[in-house]
């Protein structure tokens, strides 16, 4: 079931919420069970055949978590953790990477290999990582869950189940232990609804709206088309904004839906395209994943504790694995590797810069850093979106002008005649796509680079409380600030534009990962 569908918004969500608060008046345990069952129904809506995989994973990890928590410190405890996490990774590897591995081995060895297409269970990357984090936290003594229903709810909780944010037991489950979580809170409900509306608008109107201008350029390049400078940049920028508004819209919806039942989820995006450096970008983009990779991969690998060379190696390895997590393809490896290199260069520059006798970062330097970071991120997205290196190379060649600079003939007729000297050539019948592509790109650039993000808007407008802080305290009704009426009008308009587009629900891009 998609968040951006009528069956979810008009049937599933109302029944689930009303049931939760009604049952919660009498029994917290039953309300938690209700929510867990609803979450499994939510998951099974796509394909019930994945439910046994999900449930097996939940049961095994619950038992292994209990084993780790009860095992004495030392070898056995470590062995239990290794076995449990290894099992999770093996399952993920089988479903996600088996075909990729067999195909590549076949190509390298020249052996004829036959592969059966293995369907990727929805959300497996997310629920596997969530549970690995739980196992490690159990090992470290930071997480304990004895109640199987609550553990089931922790993993399957529908706002985060399919595409995150990746949550930690210590952040979310203490909230389910609170009595007031089960009591309807008008302010939490309405602010959750506001966040949901913003997320819906981002996904249904912005991301799905600009998607039409990304797909054709990437598809054409894969088929051998040679995009010119503006086409290549237009398509790459369109995808850059599509991905951001799609995924951050989904994350907003997840956070909003959860807040409506008084449970806070961690933020996943914090205006990443406003980042002044790649290091900062990764503190703002898919925060729950980058935090996971830092805490459970980079730091255990040694982090920055073993010298520069080892640090850079760890950075590269972490980002390559992060790339591979997104999908079983070499283009994802290239994307991760590229970001690893970016981070290495950024850390090296940071070290160098601190040695220079220059004052603190000024506005101009910050703006330059933002520009360079943005361009670097867009270039990397080309590998992320392209399905072949040939397609990616063709687009990148277009982005540096190797395929010329085409302009709509109607536009060329109105421009100075010496455009040809600059390498521009007129292209017939392209004014419409040109204007629409660049109109969308420039508009969304303003939204992404200038306007406040969801959490900033909510904090400024609706409440003094930080609804994105997952530390277990719940804002009460007194948190409501009585926002100006104009925002009700604005939000109503955004909701209408989002709902208008619900009739053609498109899956979230991160469902594929």
């Amino acid at each position: 079931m998609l968040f951006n569908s009528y069956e979810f918004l008009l049937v599933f969500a109302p029944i689930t919420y009303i049931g939760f608060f009604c049952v919660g008046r009498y029994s917290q345990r039953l309300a938690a069970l209700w929510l867990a069952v609803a979450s499994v129904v939510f998951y099974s809506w796509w394909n019930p055949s994945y439910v046994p995989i999900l449930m097996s994973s939940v049961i095994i990890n619950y038992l292994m978590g209990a084993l780790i928590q009860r095992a004495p410190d030392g070898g056995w405890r470590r062995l239990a953790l290794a076995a449990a996490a290894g099992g999770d990774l093996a399952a993920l590897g089988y479903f996600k990477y088996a075909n990729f591995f067999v195909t590549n081995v076949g190509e390298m060895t020249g052996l004829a290999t036959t592969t059966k297409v293995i369907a990727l269970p929805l959300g497996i990357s997310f629920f596997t990582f969530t549970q690995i984090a739980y196992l490690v936290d159990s090992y470290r003594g930071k997480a304990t869950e004895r109640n199987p229903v609550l553990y089931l709810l922790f993993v399957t909780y529908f706002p985060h189940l399919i595409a995150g944010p990746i949550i930690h037991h210590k952040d979310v489950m203490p909230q389910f232990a609170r009595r007031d979580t089960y009591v309807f809170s008008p302010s939490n409900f309405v602010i959750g609804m506001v966040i949901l509306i913003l997320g819906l608008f981002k996904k249904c109107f912005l991301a799905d709206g600009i998607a039409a201008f990304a797909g054709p350029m990437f598809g054409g390049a894969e088929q051998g088309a040679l995009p010119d400078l503006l086409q290549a940049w237009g398509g790459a920028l369109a995808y850059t904004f599509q991905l951001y508004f799609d995924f951050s819209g989904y994350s907003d919806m997840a956070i909003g839906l959860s807040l409506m039942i008084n449970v806070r989820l961690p933020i996943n995006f914090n205006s990443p395209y406003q980042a002044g450096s790649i290091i900062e970008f990764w503190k703002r983009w898919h925060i729950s994943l980058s935090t996971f990779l830092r805490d459970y991969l980079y730091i255990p690998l040694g982090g920055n504790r073993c010298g520069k060379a080892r640090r850079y190696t760890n950075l590269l390895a972490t980002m390559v694995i992060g790339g591979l997590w997104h999908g079983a393809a070499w283009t994802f490896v290239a994307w991760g590797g590229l970001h690893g290199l970016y981070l290495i260069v950024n850390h090296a520059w940071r070290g160098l810069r601190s040695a220079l006798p220059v004052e603190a970062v000024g506005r101009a330097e910050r703006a330059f850093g933002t520009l360079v970071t943005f361009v670097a991120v867009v270039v990397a997205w080309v590998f992320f979106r392209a399905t072949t290196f040939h397609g990616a190379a063709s687009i990148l060649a277009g982005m540096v002008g190797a395929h010329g600079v085409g302009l709509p003939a109607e536009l060329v007729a109105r421009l100075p005649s010496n455009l040809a000297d600059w390498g521009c050539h007129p292209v017939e019948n392209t004014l419409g796509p040109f204007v629409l592509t660049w109109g969308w790109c420039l508009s969304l650039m303003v939204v992404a680079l200038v306007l406040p993000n969801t959490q900033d808007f909510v904090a400024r407008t609706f409440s003094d409380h930080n609804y994105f802080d997952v530390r277990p305290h719940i804002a009460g009704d007194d948190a409501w600030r009585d926002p100006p009426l104009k925002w009700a009008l604005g939000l109503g308009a955004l909701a209408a534009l989002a709902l208008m587009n619900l009739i053609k629900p498109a899956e979230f891009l991160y469902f594929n990962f």
Partner: protein
Amino acid sequence: MLRSRPLAYLAVTGSVTLAFLLGLTLLPHSRYIRFQQTAVESLQLLRVKWIYQRIHFDPTPIDVAFIGTSHTQSSIDAELVEAAAHEHGHDWHVVNFAVPWLGRDLHYLIARELLENRRVSKLVVEVQESEPRAPHPAFLSLAELGDVVATPAIVNVNYLDNFARLPLRQASLFVRTLAPSLFGLESDFDPAHYEGLYWNDTYRPHGFNEARTAVHTAEHFAHPVSKLWAMFESKQSLGRRLNLPGLRHSLPYRYNLLYLERLLALAQEKGVEIVFYFVPFFTGPKAPADQAVLSGYGPILSPQAVLNDPGSWQNEDHLNVFGARDASRWMGRKLAEMPR
């Protein structure tokens, strides 16, 4: 009071949402843009732009008009009908306004567009073995706002879906009307983009989803009889599963009959002679299920000799170019022979 404030705010937001959706729904647009946009959205509906142009921008009379589905699209060559009628002393101008899929709601819209704007002598309405349950998928694309609202709610399985789609359709058409060239549409009729008097699809394989330049030769349609029988068996098997006892009398099946009745009533009101063109599937029944009702409106013509010849078919539902040639000539002759 304090507790109710957020909910009051939410109520205001919700009211604005509904008002905004209503406002979007009421946005105006050009009807020509609407027909063009429908043609853009589906290659199979490419003809609807031409249908609008033929009705509104081409002054050539329209004496005989065919309304139907891909069965008529594949089997009626309007020029051949004209030629056959001419041999019998009638200088008629014939048009084939069939579009794929059987849905009487869309047939009604096209017939209304025609009859409210042109004087027509004969309206030839295709009938198949029985009326379907589902509405036409393009109804919402071509319908006026009032058509969507006034469609019979209980028997229309798409009623709520159409309502949900209206704001986007209206907003999208509004934007396209403001700046048609951005979307590859025309604000006014351009003769350079007009197909002409005829749009003959009898040389195109069923599906009509290839570019129109991909016209196939007659040999393309010559199927071995065994293949035709295999297609027919498959269709029969599906039909047995779908036509469960009593299903045909269930409420949603009334939907298409209601629109057929509206169409026929409109034709009668305009003084147009109604003729039914019966083209069932290969080896289908010899008369439509609703023969008794239809006969009250006009004669039911069916080129049985053509339909009985396996060599006339390109698949289990559609005549091939040979069948179309024979059926068109037969139809022209039959129409000409009908008493005035």
